[in-house]
């Protein structure tokens, strides 16, 4: 029998949970960013894409359940890991001189909460219909006659508001930092130890992290400055 609790309690097992859930979420951000690019093709392309996602409700539901499970696992396991790590060094050094770690590995605890806040606000902005007109969205609309949202309208009206636009740009830079370390760590956490495999896996994941962050930032900027409206 596989003892899930025992695996989760161990340091390597908890990190494997972080890696697998992170990989699922990472994969989602790649697909999501590619879908976003429809905005550059115009209103029709974006809304067709939005309607396409809503075409099979069961599939949408399954995807959402998988993503939510991965997110909860990622956050809860991280809380355990942070506690373990705080307990492991109760007394801090007077002088800390980092040498091998990276800026993005050391800022996971900042980029993580930024990304989580972004996810929550983003869902309230554009996924779940805010009740009436409220501060979370200036003018949320469904497509004419459809159950799918008017994604193009909703996105452009939201991101052309300077505060939201800037927040989306910064949050996606934070996401990029977060994915950067994820790209480095997840394969090692899952036991890929060959130098060559590790090198290529990491390169591919880093490329995707740049693409996700860069694609989303470009999109938000394009709407913010009025290139896309």
């Amino acid at each position: 029998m596989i003892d899930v609790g025992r695996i989760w309690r161990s340091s390597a097992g908890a990190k494997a949970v972080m890696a697998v859930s992170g990989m699922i979420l990472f994969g989602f951000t790649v697909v999501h960013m590619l879908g976003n690019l429809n905005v550059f093709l115009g209103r029709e392309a974006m809304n067709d894409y939005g309607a396409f996602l809503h075409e099979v409700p069961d599939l949408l539901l399954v995807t959402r359940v998988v993503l939510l499970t991965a997110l909860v696992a990622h956050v809860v396991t991280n809380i355990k890991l942070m506690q373990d790590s705080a307990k492991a060094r109760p007394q801090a050094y007077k002088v800390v001189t980092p040498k091998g770690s990276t800026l993005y590995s050391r800022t996971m605890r900042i980029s993580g909460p930024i990304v989580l806040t972004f996810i929550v606000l983003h869902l309230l902005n554009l996924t779940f219909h805010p009740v009436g007109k409220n501060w979370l969205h200036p003018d949320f609309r469904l497509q004419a006659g459809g159950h799918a949202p008017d994604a193009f309208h909703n996105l452009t009206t939201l991101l052309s508001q300077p505060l939201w636009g800037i927040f989306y740009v910064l949050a996606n830079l934070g996401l990029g930092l977060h994915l950067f370390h994820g790209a480095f760590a997840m394969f090692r956490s899952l036991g890929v130890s060959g130098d060559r495999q590790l090198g290529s896996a990491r390169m591919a994941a880093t490329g995707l992290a740049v693409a996700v962050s860069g694609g989303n930032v470009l999109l938000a900027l394009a709407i913010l400055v009025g290139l896309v409206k």
Partner: protein
Amino acid sequence: MKITLQVWRQADKSSAGNFESYTLDSVSEHMSFLEMLDVLNEELSVQGKEPVAFEHDCREGICGSCGFVINGRPHGPNPKTTVCQLHMRSFKDGDQLVLEPFRAAAFPVIKDLVVDRSALDRIIQHGGYVSVNTGNPQDANALLVSKDDSDKAMDAAACIGCGACVAACPNASGSLFTSAKISHLALLPQGQPERERRVVAMLEQHDAEGFGPCSQHGECEVACPKGIKLTNIARMNGDYLWAQLLGSPRVGGSADGG
């Protein structure tokens, strides 16, 4: 040259410590770091004060006894160098150096810069060996090991168990040490029969000792005086997951003291 030291002084396990400042006016650049401390201790004893306790044995960089943190770096600023092999020529006249013990819950301070690293020994006791029945040695060429595996095993076996990886890790993880001790056996044929049980028992002992998890920061690899690679941790993680998900159900609490 003139060196100012801020040294962590702590009388014993239970008392609180604090930093004390000492200035040495004529340090020779040819001295090793520990010789510089010997000079300081000589002065302190003449003044009737308690000398600074630090651990050392071989002073050749091979035993793993020495080690403390100099300005935030375990074993000091030089790569692949134990503090006993560090020389004062690595510093400049007028330098201010903060000396702290390795800080980890699993490494309680015994006195000043000396910490209790027996947690590492207990990890070894949980499987860092091969159980071989004695008898006639077999022919040396009977077991073939690829060059690549033998190189990696030898590199992992270079670990001297000094604990600098733990000291350097932002999570105070002992993963680099544990994975080196697992890898040098996991890569060789002799290590295979107990491979799954070993990784589970050693890693869980690592956790039980209060070492933190590995976030793949990579600080340990840079701090390690023997250049132990981070990929050993990846190998350990893979072995652990393999053993837990696909391996023998009996892993863990075995009868052979493991």
